[in-house]
Each structure stands twice: as C-alpha cells, then as structure tokens.
C-alpha cells in the first residue's frame, strides 16, 4: 500500500487510528501494540500477501537469534559463544538479502565474464527487504553489544513492521523505538501530536505528489531517450540531471516526512531522515543531511567495526571508501549503484584530505562544487547503464554539443561555425523548455532558500534528533508552523490539491531499494 493512495488515506489510516485510540481508551497496551502490528502486516500484505511469509520468517528468525544471544551471554557457554550466534544471524540475513537482490546480478556477471549461459531466475524483490533486514541486523548487533533491554515478541514485531517506516525507512534503532512502544503515556490522545503529524504528513504528500511527480515528467524522458541511444546536448543533459536530483529529494524526503507525520499520529517519534541536503557545503555535510538514518547505520555498523578512524589516516580513508561502496551496493544490484557509491567514497576521501590542508574557499563555491558533484553522482544512480550515465555527463560538460532555439539562429549565425546547432533547447524530448526551467527553478529555490519541514515544525520536536536549536534557516521565523487559522487553511488546500492529483498513485523511488 502506498501512503499516496486513496485506499491508504480514506480507508486504512482512518480505521487504524480510530481503533487504536478506541483500544487505547481502555489502557490496553498489549492490545494497542497488537493492533498496530496487525495493521502493519495488512499494510505490507496489500502489495503481495505471499511475502508475508518471508517477513514472518525474518522476524521469527531474528527474534530467536536475539533471544539466544541474551541467553548464551547469561550462561557463559564455552562451546557456543555470542559472537558465533551473531555471525550466524548476520550471515542468514545477508544471504536472504543477497538471494533476492543480487542473485541475478551475480549470475549475469558470471555469464558475461566466463561466457556462460546460466539462466537467471525470475526473482521478485520483496518490497522493503533491505530496510527490514538492516533494521534487524542492527537489532542483533545491539543485543550482542548489550544495548537491548526489551524482548517482548509483539513489541519486536511492531518495531520491525510499524507501517510508517516498514518499506522505505527511516532505519530504526531498537533502543530508540522500544521505550516509546512501552510508554503508556503514548496511549493518550495527544492533539498536539495529531495536529502536528497531520501537518507534516500533508507537507510530505505535497512534496511527493505535486513536486516530485511533476519533476519526474522532465527527468524520465531525458533518461529514457538516452537509454535508447540518443545523445543529449548541454541543456537537455543538465535539465534531466537536475530534474532527477530534485525529484529524488522531494520524493524521498516527502516519503520520510509522511512517515514522521504518520508515526506522530500514534504518539511515536521517528528519527529525522532528511535535513536540507542540497544546502550542504561539503560532501561530509551532505551525508549528515541525506538519508541520515542510513548514514548513521553505515557509520555504526560498518565504518566503526571496520576500524573507523582509529588506525591512522590511510585506513580511515580506506574504511570510508569501503563503507560508501557497500552503501552503493545496498541501493541495488547494478554497476551504476556501485559506481555511485564509489564516487561518493572518492568525494569523501577528497573532502577529508582537503580538510587536512586547512585551506578554505568561499561558501558559495563550496556549495556549488558539492551540489554539482552530487548531481553528477545521481546521474549514475538513475541511468540504466554506466554508458548512458557517461553520455549524460558528457552532455553536461558540453561534449555532446550545444543546441539553441531555432528562433535566435538569425541573430547569432556565427555560432554555427563553432558547432552550435539551432534545433531547440530540448530536441530529443520535445519538452516545453519554459516548463522545465520554471519547474526546476522553483524546486531549486525551495531546496536552497526555504526552511525544511523539520525546521518549520522544530519547536514541537517532530522527530528524534530535531530540537528548536536545529533551526538554521533564518526565514523560518516567518513560516513556523503553529496551530492557527492560516496554517489550517493553507494545509487544508495543500492536501486537497495533492489528493486531486493522486489520479494514479506513483510509487516512491526508494521502494525499489
């Protein structure tokens, strides 16, 4: 089920909330948690009920392994040590993920390398598998490290399946969620959370349906044309790359806002996942603002276990590179994701090395360099092949030529001597140039100059990690959310426009990961 679907908004959500608070009225925590867990399973099964078995198996296995870890730690066995159980748990989780996500990629590459023709299997990627697998690996590591205090099965099921985060994150820590599920205070109707949650949900819905889906209409034709062998010129390559970079941001951060808002409706605070990443003035800062729970995960469960920065500069840079490479692999089975992860690894290596030099550059230049580097990497993330990505990047650097509007050909005929064509700015896709410029321009202004949703609502601590001091955009004092007629009316209309535009619920981009 999609958050931006009618069945979710007009059927699933009202039923889930109403019965939750009805149960909560009787102060039955177990019943309330069981209800939320059951509805979360319905939410998951809506996509494909067959994969409920996989989800159940994964939950059952990890809960048992977690339980065994605690038990073995207490008993101090000599033969079986906790580390053995932990390794077993991680191997089984990663093997399952590898089968569903990487098996065909592996076979295809072996075939190509050894000139074999091993048939690939028809494997359907279960939605959200990367998210629920990683969440549970973190749980096992936390149990091993002694951070886990709560072992109630039904609470664990809810921790893994809680529908606002189940299929596209944020990636949760056991220790930050379980106390909230256990807190009886959270069974009370809290109008502040309900009003705030609804407002954040509407912001997220608007970002997804109105902004991201609109940008997709400019990004997709360019990438499709290139995948069919077309060569994009300077303007078309930039418009496709920029439109996609913005689409991905509004899509995924819109989803994260909706998740935060939905959780608040049940008095649960999820961790913040986005904080204006395109305002970053360095790649290090970008990763502190983009998909923050994945960055945290990679840092805590990969970078630090690899040694982090504890064994000198060379190993630190090596660990960064490995972490980002695997971060790329996590996103999908394909060379384009591996290149994307490696590029970010390289960017981070350069960024850290640059910092050592203590050489500062103006903020605007730093921002520009960071933004362009991120956009270039997104081209690999979106393109269907590395070859297509290279074609677009060459276009962005003007290496595929420049095409200008035919109308100005008579004014600048001399440019033809320098290889400039006059076939229009977007000859491949025939998209309306003015629409592209306006849409991309407005979206850029929003991400650069306006406060993000977390800042607008920071006063009310909408998510874990967000406080009043998190606000950094000055403009926020004029547009801070508060219960008022004006905000209610504005959000009401934003919701109406978004719902009207939900003709066909389009999937969130991160569902594929």
């Amino acid at each position: 089920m999609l958050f931006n679907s009618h069945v979710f908004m007009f059927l699933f959500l009202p039923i889930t909330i109403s019965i939750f608070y009805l149960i909560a009225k009787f102060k039955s925590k177990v019943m309330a948690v069981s209800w939320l867990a059951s509805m979360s399973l319905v939410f998951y099964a809506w996509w494909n009920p067959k994969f409920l078995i996989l989800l159940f198996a994964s939950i059952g296995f990890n809960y048992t392994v977690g339980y065994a870890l605690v038990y073995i730690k207490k008993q101090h066995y000599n033969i079986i040590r906790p580390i053995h159980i932990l390794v077993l748990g991680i191997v089984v989780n990663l093997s399952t993920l590898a089968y569903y996500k990487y098996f065909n990629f592996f076979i295809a590459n072996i075939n190509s390398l050894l000139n074999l023709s091993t048939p690939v299997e028809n494997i359907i990627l279960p939605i959200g598998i990367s998210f629920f697998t990683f969440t549970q690996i973190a749980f096992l590591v936390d149990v091993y490290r002694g951070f886990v205090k709560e072992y109630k099965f039904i609470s664990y099921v809810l921790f893994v399946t809680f529908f606002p985060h189940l299929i596209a994150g944020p990636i949760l820590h056991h220790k930050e969620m379980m106390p909230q599920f256990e807190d009886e205070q959270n069974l009370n109707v809290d109008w502040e959370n309900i009003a705030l949650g609804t407002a954040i949900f509407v912001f997220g819905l608007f970002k997804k349906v109105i902004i991201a889906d609109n940008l997709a209409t400019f990004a997709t034709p360019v990438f499709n044309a290139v995948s069919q062998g077309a060569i994009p010129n300077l303007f078309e390559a930039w418009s496709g790359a920029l439109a996609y970079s913005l689409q991905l941001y509004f899509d995924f951060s819109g989803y994260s806002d909706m998740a935060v808002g939905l959780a608040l409706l049940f008095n649960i605070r999820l961790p913040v996942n986005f904080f204006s990443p395109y305002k970053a003035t360095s790649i290090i800062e970008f990763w502190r603002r983009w998909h923050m729970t994945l960055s945290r995960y990679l840092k805590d469960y990969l970078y630090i276990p690899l040694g982090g920065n504890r064994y000198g500069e060379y190993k630190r840079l090596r660990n960064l590179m490995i972490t980002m490479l695997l971060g790329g692999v996590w996103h999908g089975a394909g060379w384009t994701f591996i290149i994307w992860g490696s590029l970010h690894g390289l960017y981070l290596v350069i960024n850290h090395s640059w910092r050592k030099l203590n050489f500062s550059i103006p903020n605007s230049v730093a921002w520009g360099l960071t933004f362009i580097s991120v956009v270039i990497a997104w081209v690999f993330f979106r393109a269907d092949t590395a070859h297509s990505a290279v074609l677009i990047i060459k276009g962005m650097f003007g290496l595929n030529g420049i095409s200008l509007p035919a109308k100005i050909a008579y004014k600048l005929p001399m440019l033809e001597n320098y290889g400039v064509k006059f076939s229009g700015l977007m000859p491949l896709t025939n998209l309306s140039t003015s629409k592209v410029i306006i849409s991309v321009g407005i979206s850029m202004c929003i991400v650069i100059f306006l406060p993000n949703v977390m800042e607008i609502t920071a006063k009310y601590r909408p998510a874990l990690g967000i406080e009043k001091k998190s606000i950094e955009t000055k403009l926020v004092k004029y547009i801070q959310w508060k219960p008022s007629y004006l905000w209610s009316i504005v959000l009401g209309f934003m919701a109406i426009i978004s719902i009207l535009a939900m003709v066909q619920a389009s999937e969130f981009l991160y569902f594929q990961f």
Partner: protein
Amino acid sequence: MSYKKSFIIMVSIIVFGLLGIATFNYQVDPAGLFRLNKYESGIADILIKKQNVANISNYDERLVQKYLIEKSIEKRDVLVLGSSRVMQIHDYLFPQQTFFNHSVSGASIEDDIAIVAMYKERNWIPQKIIIGLDPWLLNKYHGQNRWQSIQEEYNNGSVYLGLDNNNEKATCFNKSFYRKYIELISLPYLKASYNKWRRPKNNEYYTTMERESTVAIKLADGTISYPDNERNISVEDAKKRAVIYASSDPIYSIGNFDKLDEDNKRKFEIFVKYLQKHKMEVVFFLPPYHPAVYDALVNNPQYSVALETERYFRNFAQQQNILVVGAYNPVECWLSDADFYDGMHAKPQAIDKIFNRSN
C-alpha cells in the same frame, strides 16, 4: 488556537473541499460515469433506429459508441475501428452484411480494445473487424487520451486480453466501481467537468434521412458526412490545408516518435491475436496521407519511425495471415491531391477506390 481546533479546521477543509469537488464532478459528469449523458445517449438512440443525425457538436464520440453498443439489439457482422481517418468506410462496401463504423477521432489502441470489450460484454462476436492503423498507435508520446472516457471498458478489455496480469486486484477494484468513485476527486475529471461546464451548449441535433447538408451528419452506419463547405473543398484549398498540416511541428500525434513503443506493440499484437483466436477475420487498413504530407514524412528524418510503423504492420500482418488494404503513400493507393479533404482525411470515393481495388 488549540491543537484540536486547528486539526478539526484542517480536516474540515479537506473533507468539505473534496465533497464540494465531488458534487461538482458528479453533477457535470463529463464522461457519463454516473448517469447517461443525454446528448450522446440521444445520438446513439437515433443511430440505432438506422437514421442519420444532423447538426451534432461538442460531443463525446466514445460515449456514443458505448451507448450504441449497450442499447443495440442487432448483432453486427462487420466493424470498423480506428480514427477519423477511417470514418469514410461506408456500409455499402459490405453488402448483405450488417455493418457499423465505430471509428472515433484520435483513436488509440485503447479505444479499439474498449470497443471490442463492449461487444464481448454483449457476447457478440462479429465476423470481420477492419482496423484502421494510424502510425501514432505505436507512438508512446501520441498524446491521445480521449479513450479515458471509456476507461472502464478498456479495463474490462485488458482483463479479456490478459494484458495486465499483475494488476488483477486493481482491475477488480476498477470493476467494482472503486475507480469510478475515485474519479470524483481526481484532477483530470475536475478539469473535464470544468471544461464541459464552461463550453457553449451543444447544438440541437435532429434526425434526418439526408446524407449531405450544410451541417455535419453522423450517418446511420457510423460514418460522417462533413458539412457542404468541407465536403466541396477545392483541390487547391485542400492542398493548402495539407501543406499547413505538414509544416505543423510536430505533425498530429507523431511528434517525438523516436521508436516503436514496445508496450503499445505488445498491446496491439495481443489484441489482434485475441480477435483471430475468437474466429474474427481481421483486416488492416492503412489510411493514406495527402501527397504533400506524405512527402513531408519521407523527407523529414524526424518522422522516419512513423513510416517504419507501416513496415511493422505489414510484417505482422504477413505473420498472422492478415489482409492489408491501403498504404500511407497515396501513390500506392492510386490517389492524388483531388482525393483528400485535407492533409490526413481521404474522401469516401478514395476509400471506395482502395477497397474495390483490393477485392
């Protein structure tokens, strides 16, 4: 203001706003989802009585087909599907057979599938189906979305054809009126309602036995007879129109045609094979363009794929043992400038000539 009050105001705006929009959409009901559209339904009633309808305007051609098939009591032996470019295929070309021309302006493959699905709902299987094949049928960016007013019928057709196996649940929902009610709060339906609400009232149509007039006449066999000034256009004026048409950028529905769309090809092939499997004789008709337009298509590399569609249709016909009538190239059909009303519509005499020569 309290949080509770703020929440209630916000939700009230959403609920009452959507209710208001739904009421407006329901009242205007541009696609006739909730009640018969009297105008289109009235046209269908007259055609069923085998009479001609004159002075029709601003109507939904698809809805006329829908009502006509739903209300008909007579099975038909020969059907014509396609765009306005096949609207001159008349019943007299098929003597001794019951006939109807179901062509609609700007037809896409979805229209063809929807119309066959309507017949299937009635359990009627025609003997012969003539499919008008415009090049834009295989253009992903043809921009034709008028078929959406018979979307429910198209969805049924998709199920019959097994086009969308993965979407069975969604289709069930569509069939169970879910989709229909969602239209009440959809932006495209709101736009359509607004346009219908704003546009001038339809002309009063009337029944006639005439076949030619100063106004357009929808003939009882489903074909169209253009008004006198259109029908009697001079060769020079028709050529002028064709030249303007050929120089339009892009040419009608074949802009951005960079490859034959795989999805549309798949739909088309499954559709044709379905017809053959159910013992319907399929005939492909390639409607010719005006010589000036055809020259433009040949000379402009932008339209090379549009012309490639003809090769694809012919190859597919050969594989499936299907008769092909006509060609995009007017010369191949023995036609000249005098055989056209404009850049893309051939006169009935031209169509007759093509069919007679093919026999």
